């Protein structure tokens, strides 16, 4: 490490103003602070500095994503084995999944970070770390069969139009990963839903009774009143399978168990807001009970038990990793309760009554992202009003 530091310090002057590679200063700075802790301090005034910075925040969130990510990789292999009747040994399954999604992860990182680097150079900014998490989140919320070029187009669109035009990391009002997902869904619907994209068959013939549809899609289009769903091998799937995540789906979000581990890491380290998570679950349950109480054969999914609704689809993933994104969520305490509750309720509302597209969590989070500043404004204004009234009553 010492040798590396020496080398870097040797080439450093070339990147300083006046040096030969002055233009590439932000690239140098990005790599330098990635490798070493900078010991620059401010020279004037008194500053309070938190031990936590955005690099550490991003790393912690990545750590929280890791259980879902690793499980998702294994699950890709497992679903493939179930669908084609291959043996289910742990190691080959994991590596099958790893190699299936590695190109997607690399694509997302190269395209996204590439754009961030270029924009940082053009504006003379430092390179921000915001994309470290988005780059892993994006493949995880997409079907395993998503072509890499589509992912690249969508990532480029999302990073430029949802983030860089507003000023880069920390200024985006929409969640970048979800914008990518929404772009893919509306631009290439045939590759983002249906029976053929959630299970990687690898060209092998499928077993009898095979279905590649996700549980949520099966429920949304199933016969009214029946709540039976089948796995890829045609055998019924239980609520426990849904909880552990042994079902097809966008590969990172199937396992509620791993999402709970991630949620615990986020909450213990204080990265995510427990208020948003709790109120989101409460909102979803409230809406589910309402939907269940007036269950209608027109909307088959309303017949599902409200608690099971939480295990289905991308809801749990969205509420833990997407809704709690500190940049796009509400900042005020009361606002967080309202924001989370509405995300849960709207997600379930879309799931129940939009049978064409039951995965409402993505749209719910994006919708509430737009309303978050308004909610905050109302909360702050009502505080101001209350205090003005109190002041008047005293004087």
């Amino acid at each position, binding site marked *: 490490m010492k040798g590396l530091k020496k080398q870097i310090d040797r080439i450093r002057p070339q990147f300083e103003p006046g040096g030969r590679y002055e233009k590439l200063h932000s690239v140098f700075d990005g790599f330098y602070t990635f490798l070493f802790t900078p010991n620059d301090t401010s020279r004037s005034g008194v500053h309070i500095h938190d031990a936590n910075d955005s690099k550490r925040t991003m790393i912690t969130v990545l750590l929280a994503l890791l259980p879902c990510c690793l499980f998702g990789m294994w699950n890709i292999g497992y679903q493939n084995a179930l669908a084609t009747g291959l043996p289910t040994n742990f190691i080959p399954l994991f590596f099958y999944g790893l190699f299936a999604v590695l190109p997607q992860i690399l694509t997302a990182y190269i395209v996204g970070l590439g754009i961030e680097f270029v924009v940082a150079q053009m504006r003379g900014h430092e390179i921000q770390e915001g994309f470290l998490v988005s780059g892993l989140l994006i493949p995880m919320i997409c079907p395993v069969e998503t*072509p890499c070029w589509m992912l690249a187009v969508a990532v480029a669109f999302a990073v430029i*139009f949802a983030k860089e035009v507003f000023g880069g990391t920390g200024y985006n009002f929409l969640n970048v990963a979800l914008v990518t997902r929404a*772009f893919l869904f*509306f*631009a290439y*619907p045939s*590759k983002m839903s249906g029976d053929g994209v959630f299970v990687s068959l690898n060209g092998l013939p499928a077993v009898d009774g095979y279905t590649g549809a996700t549980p949520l899609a099966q429920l949304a289009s199933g016969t009214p009143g029946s709540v039976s769903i089948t796995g890829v091998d045609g055998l019924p799937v239980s609520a426990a399978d849904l909880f552990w995540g042994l079902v097809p789906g966008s590969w990172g979000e199937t396992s509620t168990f791993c999402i709970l581990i991630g949620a615990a890491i986020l909450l213990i380290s204080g990265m995510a807001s427990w208020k948003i998570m709790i109120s989101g679950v409460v909102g979803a349950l409230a809406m589910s009970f309402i939907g269940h109480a007036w269950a209608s054969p027109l909307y088959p999914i309303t017949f599902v038990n409200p608690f099971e609704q939480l295990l289905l689809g991308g809801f749990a993933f969205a509420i833990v990793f997407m809704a709690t994104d500190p940049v796009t969520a509400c900042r005020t305490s009361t606002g967080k309760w309202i924001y989370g509750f509405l995300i849960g309720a709207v997600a379930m509302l879309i799931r129940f009554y939009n049978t064409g597209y039951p995965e409402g969590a993505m749209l719910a989070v994006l919708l509430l992202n737009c309303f978050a500043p308004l909610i905050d404004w109302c909360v702050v204004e009502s505080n101001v009003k209350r205090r003005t009234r109190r002041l008047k009553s005293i004087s």
Partner: protein
Amino acid sequence: MKISKSLLPLVTPLSKDNPVIVQVLGICSALAVTAKLEPAIVMTISVTAVLALANVIISALRNTIPTSIRIIVQLVVVAALVVVVDQVLKAFAYDVSKQLSVFIGLIITNCIIMGRLEAFALNNRPWPAFLDGIGNGLGYGIILVIVAFFRELLGSGTLLGCQVIPQWCYEHGYANCGLMILPPMALITVACIIWVHNRKAS
């Protein structure tokens, strides 16, 4: 390039004072008719014709119209012209007029037309007013055609209805971007044009 002063009303709306990307008028129809190139071109011609003729008529009448009822007079003139255009399209280009549906009728409410009548035709002689009408119509049309070009190319893989993206690409996994033919991408495409335009202007 030196442009004679008499031609200025024709030239400035094309880029420097463009009605869509600088004055941000007529956005509604720019979003609605640009999913395909053909309706965009027909819309351009219709708007240019209506705008030029309305400008000339109002300009010729400018000294006789009482100020208090000028909006009504303008509307009557524009409405009459729009009905003529609508009938011509129905007679000679029925398919396109079906595609454009209500938007031909809505030329009456196009902000560019009322804007030019109020701002230019009421204060100028008929010939400059005619040039101004043509210039603004074309300025509107340029943007429409650029937006429609990208939306049709990327959204449907065709231009003017002919397939331009080779079948070979589709066989190797290329797919049309369905979002391009939805309204949001029209807004974003217009935004990109404004972006490039501002960059060049500054």
